[in-house]
């Protein structure tokens, strides 16, 4: 009887965790699609808190989670004619170059200073877009 009960609670816990994962996935997908990015901001903490992954693994896994979501979102953006090809090529080329440099710099730069600069730039951008 006791064994049965624990089995039932385990089953319930499992179900609860799945529901939480699906719901948070929905939030990640919506934000990432609506804002064209930023899904990682919710995905990384989700992986850390719910799936109990360490920081490094969470960051790496988040990319793999967001990839299919972005793929779908891209399809919608293209289908609705929101993307033109010329700026895509030039900006995309830059992103690729910068991305490679950034990944290398990750090992050298002090994260706290970069974080604060990053936060200031984001705040400035956010305020500028709002007004």
């Amino acid at each position, binding site marked *: 009887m006791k064994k049965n009960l624990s089995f039932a609670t385990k089953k319930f816990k499992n179900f609860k965790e799945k529901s939480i994962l699906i719901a948070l996935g929905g939030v990640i997908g919506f934000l990432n699609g609506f804002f064209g990015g930023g899904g990682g901001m919710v995905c990384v903490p989700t992986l850390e808190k719910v799936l109990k992954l360490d920081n490094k693994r969470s960051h790496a896994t988040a990319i793999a989670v967001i990839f299919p979501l972005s793929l779908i979102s*891209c399809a919608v953006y293209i289908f609705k004619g929101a993307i033109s090809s010329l700026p895509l090529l030039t900006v995309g080329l*830059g992103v690729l170059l910068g991305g490679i440099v950034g990944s290398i710099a990750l090992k050298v730069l002090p994260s706290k200073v970069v974080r604060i600069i990053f936060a200031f730039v984001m705040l400035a951008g956010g305020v500028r877009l709002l007004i």
Partner: protein
Amino acid sequence: MMIFLQILFGVLGGFFGGLGMGGGTILIPMLTIFLGFDQQLSQGINLLSFLVMALLSIWIHARNGLIATKGILWIILGGVIFAVGGSFLATILPSVILKKCFGAFLCVLSVLEFFKAFPKKKKT
């Protein structure tokens, strides 16, 4: 000149993305503010360039065994459905409205980022 700026902003966005801090949150506002792109175009470009970068990162991380698989299918399941809804909504909204929504989103994220830079309790 325009092309030069496009590449430059791409590099800056990619740089922060490579640092693992979300390049889009830098790239999208730069494209919209300084180059006058439609908010939807900026976001779409970010999505597409993320895909290319992500392929590279996933390949490298997978080789280092850093990608966990347990449970992530549930997140993806919920995510894919709402990704369609979110993207659709973004493409039908007027660019000016979407721009303001994005601005508010950035403000919230930047506050969270400040908190992350100064953690209250030490994490083990």
